[in-house]
């Protein structure tokens, strides 16, 4: 069994690496457009974009203490590059010096001003080097200069940009290492992401876990009940579940809230204060009311398939009672299928909690995810996606172990 557990753990870890790769493709590879642009929106300045890029790790943080200003083509674009050059100067392409920019201290505002006053002859390729004094962090210089306005002639200005984009493979290594260390960086407002996820995640778990367990147990029990009764009970439950599945979840939420909290006053309407259980009961109940019916259908169908096996008929013919039949014959054979289904349902927990947490004002992950999506906060979205994937993988691993415990054949097939 230990060997099996280890084997499944390695399997889960390989999946985690796969998740990191997928997240990279989605968020950072550039395959789906520039993530910084996505976050900043259409009317963003070069400076805003640069700051986001640095925060997301799309650009190198500059460790060199000198930067080169490169002018491309028709002087429409300017780039900063880290160089090892010796001087601080503005030179033409033939290397004749045009002017010098003096840097004293971390004087970024003054630097901006001197750049804004620099008039670069049009149509000539030229470059300048800005050499900072040794105390100046070049990353700070670069991020401050990125987006600085440069006067090209009296009327035209251009924004500085960086050329130091990280190559994709380095971005991937950088991001993977950070994710696997649970270093998620900071969100748009500059707050560190990891502690927020942890704090809010606990509250979401307090809502999702009981709701999930309760809903699953009830659905399986109801499915067994329907199977053992068959006939009229089974058919009416099938009809009822079809009906309830057709009703929108939002309608169910609003109805239950208006009835149980608004009219009957059994639960508080919304909020979050100790004892927190008071504020969780109605959301959990609502969740179960929504999730129960589709799950019932699923488990009823699953168990029905198992029940089709000849062994039940044989047992029944031997005069085994229905209750014992379910407990001793059907369930042990169905464990693997049940557990597999239950773990498959896990990813949907996260989606469910977004709506419920918002409606019931529970300060969990759900409200944060909704906000992140709305603000296109890429770092936060990435962190949440990674965390959810981990939760799912962990659940799968646990499910695997349970399956292995419940059915030796399962263990053998996968060891």
């Amino acid at each position: 069994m230990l060997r099996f557990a280890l084997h499944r753990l390695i399997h889960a870890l390989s999946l985690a690496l796969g998740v990191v790769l997928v997240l990279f493709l989605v968020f950072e590879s550039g395959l789906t457009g520039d993530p910084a642009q996505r976050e900043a929106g259409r009317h963003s300045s070069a400076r805003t974009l640069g700051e986001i890029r640095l925060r997301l790790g799309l650009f190198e943080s500059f460790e060199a203490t000198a930067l080169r200003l490169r002018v491309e083509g028709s002087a429409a674009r300017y780039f900063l590059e880290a160089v090892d050059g010796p001087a601080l100067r503005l030179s033409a392409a033939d290397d004749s010096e045009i002017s010098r920019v003096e840097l004293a201290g971390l004087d970024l505002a003054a630097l901006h001003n001197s750049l804004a006053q620099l008039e670069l002859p049009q149509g000539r390729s030229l470059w300048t080097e800005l050499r900072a004094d040794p105390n100046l962090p070049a990353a700070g210089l670069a991020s401050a200069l990125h987006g600085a306005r440069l006067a090209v002639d009296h009327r035209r200005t251009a924004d500085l940009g960086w050329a130091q984009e990280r190559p994709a493979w380095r971005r991937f290594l950088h991001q993977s290492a950070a994710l696997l260390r649970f270093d998620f960086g900071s969100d748009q407002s500059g707050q560190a992401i990891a502690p927020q996820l942890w704090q809010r995640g606990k509250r979401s778990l307090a809502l999702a876990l009981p709701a999930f367990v309760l809903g699953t147990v009830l659905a399986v029990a109801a499915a067994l009940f329907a199977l053992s009764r068959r006939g009229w009970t089974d058919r009416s439950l099938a009809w009822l579940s079809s009906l309830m599945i057709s009703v929108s979840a939002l309608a169910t939420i609003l109805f239950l809230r208006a009835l149980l909290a608004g009219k009957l006053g059994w639960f508080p309407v919304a909020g979050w204060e100790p004892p927190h259980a008071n504020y969780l009961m109605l959301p959990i109940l609502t969740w179960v009311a929504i999730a129960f019916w589709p799950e019932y259908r699923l488990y009823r169908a699953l168990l029905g398939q198992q029940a089709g096996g000849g062994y039940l008929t044989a047992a029944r013919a031997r005069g085994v009672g229905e209750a014992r039949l379910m407990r001793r014959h059907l369930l042990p054979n169905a464990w693997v299928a049940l557990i597999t289904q239950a773990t498959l349902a896990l990813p949907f927990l996260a989606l469910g909690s977004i709506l419920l947490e918002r409606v019931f004002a529970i300060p969990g992950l759900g409200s944060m995810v909704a906000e992140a999506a709305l603000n296109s906060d890429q770092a936060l979205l990435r962190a949440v996606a990674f965390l959810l994937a981990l939760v799912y993988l962990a659940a799968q691993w646990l499910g695997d172990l349970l399956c292995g415990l419940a059915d030796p054949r399962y263990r053998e097939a996968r060891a």
Partner: protein
Amino acid sequence: MILSLALLLAAAPPHEAALQEPQGRAAISGHDADSRSATKGQEAGGRNARFALASEPTSFDPLAAETTANQVIQRQVYEGLVEYDYLARPYRVTPLLAESWSVAEDGRRWRFELRPDALFHDPQQPPLWPGGSRPVLAQDVLESWLRMADARLPATGYWAMQGLIEGLDEFHRQTAGTLAEAEAAMTNALEHGLPGLRVLGPRRLEVRLTRPDRDFLLRLASAYFAVYPAETVARGINNQPVGSGPFLLAEWIPRSQAVFRAVPGWRGQTGPGGRALPQLDEVRFTTILENSTRTLMFRRGEIDRLPPLQDAFHDLIDGRQPSAELREQGVSLQILAPAGLTMIAFNMDDPQVGSIPGDLAGNRRRRLLRQAIARAYPFARWHRIIRNDAWAEAATTFIPPGFSESVGMPSSPYRTPDLDEARRLLAAAGWPGGAGAPRLQYELSGTDPVSQASGEIFAEGMRAIGLEVDLVPNTFAALQAKAARGEAQIFARGWTMDWADPANLLELFYGPNRAPGINRCNYDNPVYDRLLEALPSASAPRRRALVHVMLGLLNEELPAIPIDHRRGYMLVQPWLRDMEVHPFDPFACKYYRIER
């Protein structure tokens, strides 16, 4: 301050409010640990108040005291030298941290004496000081104000003191210079003060103004002039505030919840009726974005007050009183005079709708475009959907009626809807029928239905004259950040006056206040700026004339379209006593009382 679109209303001092920030929605629940049925707050005992916020509070740093939600939570912890007299109308200030003050005859030199019994209280463990408290000194006032003026920091409130105190602008410039200069300026100012800001003794402070300013004390009562110990900044003031106010921060979930407990044995200030303040043990603010949720919570007694909005308005309000059902429960209604402006703001730096230096012909076309947009804006639809046809007054220009400056003020000709005229203006701008006109970007100011609706109202109005609009989704905080970077094109903006002077609204268009300052329209007109600078020392009749000229400029240039002035409607539970909604201090919780 900025209100969220949703409406705002009531009581928030000047700052930006979400379109629908009511001023406070509060809720009460008592719960004192022993036995409180969570469902029936109104039956529980205790002196605990519960309120709902309609937008997310993000920080306890007074540098971020710009949004209504942040001001509300910060005011529970921090104090300034003075505060608004809670009950006096018209509004006036009374001593708070300052025990007394005197002003020289020239109206420029002020001396403040701090009260000796004011202490900073630190609820954290271990505390910053042995025993968890230390006295408030004049040096703390100096340091707090200097921090607001430090150009290296992202302060949202510097505009409130800009140009006001001698030497402060110079200090601001120095801190914008090199690192060495900034540090030298700060060290020097901390040690010797500024020409207009000097510590004369442990509790004595002298302020010299650049000119007499009749609003000076009103400004001091705003959240921007909060006084806090420098020690708390180093520790992380965003999440661990330390102030001298009557409440301590007990629980804090950024964006979602802030819970305050009364300082044990707070310094013994008494309120109306001679009762010791604060009169509450606990105040809980919870962010509830959903209007329907807030309404249901109020009906169930889970929050203590509620600005009735949108869908719920006609259920809850019957003319100028609460509905019969609510009256039976003892709920009362307070209605406030308008003290703010809701507008559709244009970013004047934007190349499609704004004003670009030097491009005279283009600027003329874009001004015609803004005027066409104003003429096409469906004000009636806005009023019906967003204001329930009730709780706001149509704006005729940029300041509300009811102030001495409002008498005889010029109204904007473009404020009256007229589609034909709008089409004519659009054609004059060179885009007949909207052909070839730029696609407009309207930034939504939140995820609530009100903000969404405001976008749809705008888009629909523009479609009628052939203009296409993209609606850009944002949370309220995200829009504020965008506008502060000057990257939003068109957006609804609600502003509640920061103090009782309509000139506060005119500062929204003052050139030096451009983004990230409060001039988020980035309107830049030197003539306008000169006029505004002449206001503080002008005599009353001259002042009115100046204001009218400024309004004339805004009416024609339209850096924003004035929409309306919200009237604060506030439903109050019967157990919340001594609660007078104050437009400039929407949650003066220390005066509130719970009696069940």
